[in-house]
């Protein structure tokens, strides 16, 4: 293996790593107090920005031996998106008060999580992918309870950790089975090895185990139970990171893994023509996620929990498109995951603002936001309506394409219309709880002692950029879509 190449193509991750380590080091010195939380935030952003720059300057596509690192325009796009989401998270966290110990380490942990996600996105090697997932997960487990330690936070983090480690065990077991029957650690090698295998029982067992792992990562039912607690307990920017960046990476790797690596053993999710493979499994997970996520959200009073349940529902939409098991679905899923991440980060920014100034994330705490902070309220409207899938926002086209992709493949359009119908129905349900939040924002009278909810400048930047991008991508999704289409990896 040529190590200089290895270093070159991992340079963005290395830059982030050095920044994170430097921050941990600085945090131990007396300078820590002088730099302060805000200073560390800027250092972290500088590091991620530099990594982004390096990423964009890296020379053309390259695949290192055994696909340990795959550098092509698609992975570059997603690594860049992850970096931007991390910058957004850091910007949202800039205005918060953090306890002294958390100043440096908290932000460094976020960077470690970012490295993990970048590694996941940039590899086609089973073990490297697993290591990346674990790196990201471990950092996020800690972050959930790191900033404000308390019994609720500890419970949520423990729940996240326990479910996560069980899922990781399943994933690792599945990957080892897969290695056992295919003799390869790379996606493409696996794809070749299992091309003729059909519905081999060991392969199916491996697939089931792997789906547990991915299901946990994207919070699909029945592996979603950690999400509402973790989102609520975590500091809001961290919850935003889990809901956006971590999910984007999860969708990316699940889509790539299933469609490129295991495409041959998809089976079929057609109504009346189910075939053994991962497609019917995914379809079942998708249907359950849509139902339980969206109906669960109806019962919540806390906006963070609503976002968690709605996130479960959105995972259902994405998995439904994946269950079509067609290459076309990849484009739709990738496009949607980017938009989804953007909308979530923006929404969590506003939630964080409210929670900081009113110490609550109940819907009632949002009363009067429309008058006291029109910019934040506007951003929240755009983010939630994009998630609900209303035009002219990006979510509308994203969902439309996703549902179209769900139909793709198959012979009879009636075959998978059950999934699309359920998705559309649940999408309509989701509008109800999003509107309930907006009702408080615009039409409820705030409590008398409601404190002021002026956004600080970094958050404002996130609101403006996020909202503008949601509108722009809604009106002109063409260029991004064409870019993704042009750089899609092709199954061999």
């Amino acid at each position: 293996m040529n190590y200089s190449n290895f270093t070159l193509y991992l340079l963005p991750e290395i830059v982030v790593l050095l920044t994170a380590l430097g921050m941990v080091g600085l945090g131990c010195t007396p300078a820590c107090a002088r730099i302060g939380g805000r200073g560390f935030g800027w250092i972290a952003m500088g590091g991620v920005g530099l990594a982004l720059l390096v990423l964009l300057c890296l020379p053309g596509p390259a695949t290192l031996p055994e696909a340990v690192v795959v550098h092509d325009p698609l992975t570059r796009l997603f690594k860049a998106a992850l970096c931007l989401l991390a910058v957004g998270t850091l910007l949202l966290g800039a205005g918060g008060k953090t306890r002294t110990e958390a100043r440096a380490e908290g932000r460094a942990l976020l960077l470690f999580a970012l490295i993990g996600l970048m590694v996941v996105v940039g590899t086609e090697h089973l073990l490297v992918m697993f290591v990346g997932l674990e790196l990201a997960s471990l950092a996020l487990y800690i972050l959930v309870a790191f900033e404000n330690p308390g019994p609720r936070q500890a419970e949520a983090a423990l729940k996240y950790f326990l479910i996560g480690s069980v899922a990781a065990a399943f994933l690792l077991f599945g990957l080892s089975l897969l290695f056992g029957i295919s003799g390869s650690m790379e996606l493409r090698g696996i794809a070749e090895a299992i091309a003729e295998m059909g519905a081999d029982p060991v392969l199916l067992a491996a697939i089931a185990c792997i789906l547990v792992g991915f299901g946990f990562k994207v919070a699909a039912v029945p592996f979603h139970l950690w999400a509402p607690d973790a989102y609520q307990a975590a500091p809001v920017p961290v919850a935003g990171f889990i809901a956006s960046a971590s999910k984007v990476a999860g969708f990316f790797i699940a889509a790539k893994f299933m469609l490129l690596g295991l495409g041959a053993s998809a089976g079929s999710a057609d109504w009346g023509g189910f075939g053994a493979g991962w497609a019917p499994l995914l379809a079942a997970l998708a249907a359950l996620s849509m139902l339980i996520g969206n109906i669960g959200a109806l019962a919540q009073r806390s906006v963070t929990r609503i976002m968690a349940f709605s996130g479960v529902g959105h995972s259902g939409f994405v998995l439904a498109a994946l269950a079509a098991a067609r290459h076309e679905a990849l484009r739709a899923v990738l496009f949607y995951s980017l938009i989804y991440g953007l909308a979530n980060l923006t929404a969590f920014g506003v939630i964080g603002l409210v929670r900081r100034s009113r110490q609550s994330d109940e819907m009632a705490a949002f009363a009067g936001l429309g008058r006291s902070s029109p910019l934040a309220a506007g951003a929240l409207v755009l983010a939630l309506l994009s998630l609900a899938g209303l035009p002219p926002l990006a979510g509308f086209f994203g969902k439309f394409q996703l549902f179209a992709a769900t139909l793709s493949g198959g012979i009879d359009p009636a075959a998978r219309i059950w999934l699309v119908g359920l998705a559309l129905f649940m999408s309509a349900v989701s509008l109800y709880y999003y509107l309930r939040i907006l009702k408080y924002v615009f039409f409820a009278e705030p409590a008398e002692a409601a404190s002021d909810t002026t956004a600080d400048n970094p958050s404002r930047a996130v609101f403006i950029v996020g909202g503008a991008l949601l509108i722009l991508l809604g009106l002109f999704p063409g260029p991004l879509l064409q870019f993704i289409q042009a750089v899609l990896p092709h199954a061999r």
Partner: protein
Amino acid sequence: MIAWTFLTALIGSCLLFLLPRRWRDSARWIALAAAVAGMVPVLGALANFAAAAPVGDFKFVLRHPWIETMGIDFHLGVDGISLVLILLTAIMALAGILFSWNITRQPQRFFALFLLIIAGAYGVFLSLDLFLFLVFYELVILPKYFLIAGWGSTRKDFAAMKLTLYSIFGSALVIVGILAAWFASGRSGFDLTALAATDYAPGLQIWAFPLTFLGFAILGGIWPFHTWVPGGHTAAPTAASMLLAGVVMKLGAYGALRVAMPLFPEGLETWRLFFALLAAVGILWGACVALAQRDLKFVIAYSSISHMGFVFLGILCVSLVGVAGGVLQMVSHGFIAALLFAVVGRMLYDRTHTRDLSALGRLGLRRALPFAAFVFIAATAASIGLPGFSGFVAEVLVLLGSWSSFPLLLVPAAAGILVTVAFGLKAMRETFFAEPVESTSPPPDYPPVTRPEYLGALLLLAASLGLGLYPQPWIEVVSAALNSEMMRVIFP
């Protein structure tokens, strides 16, 4: 050129959203300017319609690639049906703004939302690409919610949410149907003419037609999915009631005629009688319920359900006479319902703060507000279908059409007309001709009818009279459109 109809509305809407609060008094002038500017291209199209060169079945065609990866075009065009409906929209925009001249609560937001609905309506009537159609169709949903929840009365939260959910569930059904058609036609694009020219398998049409048609018909207030109408129309502020009854319900009927029927003609053949039955029941049901109401707005709202029943009965006749009658009824009911809501919501309620029939009767309104009485009498005459007004022409055509298509359904339809006469006269008598308690005392001192009200009422009255006295050119353009290659497929 034709795109400036909704572009002016959108630009006006954006300007108003960004308008600083201190300039809010100019909001209504900006809205009026946008509405007038939007009317210019409509009148231009009207003047040049005969002379313009057709492209396929449509004139003033505008086509640009939009999202090429999905085969989606920015594709607009006008034929006789869209022509009369954009004219309706232009007049309603003007009248709605004139009747909201006295809005004082956040007028900039109010008019911005109002113009968004107008833009959506123009777009729906002009779109020849089904994705673009859906964008405009769903664009209308949210502003309705905010207008009612923000500026409404009488259980506004409940009514606004109910109306929004009905709309979104309706459009979910529509999207299922459209995606099925797109899939079955080879996934090449969403061009309406191309999709309508495709022969779909009968097995698909048999379920896709009722889904799509019902999805549209829910927005058109078809019985038994009409229950959002009374609450929504009553709770809405005057201008929004006018738009809801005058334009938004027509979007549903237009979609049913323009999209559901030409796409799935065989499904139409199978389901025609069933839906016609619903329409006929709606005619009678709406009229009977209107007879029992004590709130004047509820009377008008239920009369809308009855009148929309005529629209659906007409288009389901699938004969030239019946469908043309249905289209004219859309326009006619738009003018009349808007006029009635304007009298009740603006002229009476804003002055007397009651809509209760017995309370209104005690006020001696005939002498206090003679102009309101005059307009209400004229509008009631139009509503019960007296010759000379637009309602007469339209309903006669629909009845003629159903005479040959569904002779038995004439019974409920004709009975509905009789009941309409009954509740129309009853409402008129109780509101204006009941003996005031002290008939000798001078009439109560209400603010006089303002100039915008005069203008708006005369505009709508003139429109209804114009259509009623000289219907020939309108019948001709609509019939020509129905004879086009695309629309001809709906006739057996």
